[in-house]
């Protein structure tokens, strides 16, 4: 079965992002395919390269990156939500005349159309961190 996952939960302040990560691992372990993980609203903070966590705690953005590399996942951060919150790549940083950028490797910025396309392509779309 083809899944897509929508993450609206930020990585630290709520459990939703880690639950999404566990769900993604379970989906893959069960032999299903993940078409895309789409990060929307405060979920875009999962795409920050600058998050640092104490050594005995898990760094969720880093784990997304590792999972993406292992399974060749498509991790897409909503560009409008990301720009508003300061999660940008070099191209967007230049567009908005900012001197820094922070999008983590393995993530890309793209539009809400990628969410809709994921819905079209997927048998199941599962949302984490909705309703806040």
């Amino acid at each position: 079965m083809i899944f897509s996952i929508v993450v609206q939960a930020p990585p630290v302040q709520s459990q939703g992002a880690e639950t999404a990560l566990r769900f993604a691992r379970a989906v893959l372990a069960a032999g299903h395919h993940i078409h895309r993980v789409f990060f929307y609203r405060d979920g875009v903070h999962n795409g920050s390269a600058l998050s640092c966590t104490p050594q005995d705690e898990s760094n969720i953005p880093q784990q997304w990156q590792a999972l993406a590399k292992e399974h060749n996942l498509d991790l897409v951060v909503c560009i409008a939500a990301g720009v508003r919150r300061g999660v940008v790549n070099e191209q967007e940083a230049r567009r908005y005349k900012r001197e820094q950028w922070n999008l983590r490797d393995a993530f890309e910025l793209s539009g809400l159309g990628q969410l809709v396309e994921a819905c079209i392509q997927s048998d199941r779309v599962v949302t984490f961190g909705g309703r806040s």
Partner: protein
Amino acid sequence: MSVDGMLILTRSAPYGSSAARDALDVALTCSVFEQPVTLLFLDDGVFQLMKDQSPGDIAQKNLNAVQQSLPLYDIERLCVGKSSLERRGLSGDDLILPVEIVDDSSLPALLAQYRHVLSI
């Protein structure tokens, strides 16, 4: 089983969080991609559709302007939970657009009509 299109479920008040605006953005994008889309308003989400909002004092944009453009995007099916509306002392007349008022008991059947349900 279902079917086609997307149902966007929104349960948050219009201001105080970005949820209402974020849900509308997804709905409009669905329409651009020619996906049939329905909005379902439950709980405090019913306040999103109230007429005569004036959020300028709290430096927010008025949602009514975008909502009134929904029919232009072929987003014509707007569903509202009956008990959510009644508990807040509202009726369909208080809302900015014509809506379909759905009994609680009919909600599962409504959700089942859509291929995907997105909660925002």
